[in-house]
């Protein structure tokens, strides 16, 4: 079974209680239709489990088939460096990707537009995105989105019932063993 090879760390973008018993890690691509479909499902799963779940998003852009995925990931990382990762993450899934969107997001969040343009031109955040990608490859990410639940690759569907069912089973097992 494929398992997460890169532990969650301060380099990650994390939502939810840091002491939550279950961690859901998603490797995603902002231009991937399946990731877009999974976006509201993850939101629903987070709401359903509340403090019992923390969520981590890592980049896995499939750049050869999704030409906008890399710049979108770098824009999210730029926003993350300014403390606004999740607003941009959400907006990227909710809107048509492209530079006009990235600049509009920067303006809406009072992020310096010139710095964003420079970061995208100089590929400042490419190493971070690439590092996420490499960690995903080593962990057995086999498409997007790929989820890991407490480090174990989720090979079921990316729908609410499958994700929530696996998380609930993980919680039940933790309660039994504690």
């Amino acid at each position, binding site marked *: 079974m*494929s398992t997460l*090879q890169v532990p969650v760390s301060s380099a990650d973008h994390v939502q939810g209680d840091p002491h939550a018993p279950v961690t859901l890690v998603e490797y995603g691509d902002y231009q991937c239709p399946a990731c877009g479909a999974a976006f509201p499902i993850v939101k629903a799963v987070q709401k359903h489990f509340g403090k019992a779940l923390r969520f981590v998003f890592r980049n896995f852009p*499939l*750049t*050869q*088939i999704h030409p906008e995925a890399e710049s979108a990931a770098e824009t999210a990382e730029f926003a993350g460096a300014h403390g606004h990762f999740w607003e941009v993450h959400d907006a990227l899934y909710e809107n048509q990707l492209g530079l006009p969107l990235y600049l509009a997001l920067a303006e809406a969040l009072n992020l310096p537009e010139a710095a964003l343009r420079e970061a995208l031109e100089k590929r400042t955040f490419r190493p971070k995105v690439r590092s996420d*990608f*490499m960690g995903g*490859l*080593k*962990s*057995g*990410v*086999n*498409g997007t989105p790929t989820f890991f639940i407490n480090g174990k690759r989720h*090979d079921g569907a990316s729908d609410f019932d499958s994700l929530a069912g696996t998380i609930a089973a993980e919680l039940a097992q933790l309660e039994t063993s504690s």
Partner: protein
Amino acid sequence: MTTVCIEPQTAERQEQAELLRPGTKAPDFTLHVTPDQCLSLSDLTGKPVVIAFYPADWSPVCGDQMTLYNEALPEFEKYGAEILGISVDGAWCHDAFAKHQHIHFPLLSDFEPKGAVAKQYGAYREGEGICQRALFVIDRNGVIAWSYLSPLAVNPGADGILQALERLPD
């Protein structure tokens, strides 16, 4: 007196052949890589080679698997490794698929005689007439270092390949 010829191991014949195992010399082959060019495994001697047998161009999981390896090329290159995809699709089909998915590594046609190379590697699905989803990592001396058979519907990812490349002696 004539001997009645009873086919031995009828039950076993229904099962799929076993993949060639680590330690086995990788059988050499020459296959079309484009409609007018061929590539032989022996052309790559001295380099680690990853062979990914897969069932078919265009099917969604295969697309993901070859797309994934395409994205992973810089990581394979760190080990000096070449990767080859092999299916029974014809060279023109591979050509269209590779262009559509922007695939930057060779897709070989195990087309005529159909599946002959896959059969040599134990990676052919009799009955269905397609390649298994099977991975091999071959060392610099042409010996199989690692092999893995994935369930047909599961994209095996790249973690096993990268671990096998990591373990190869320099």
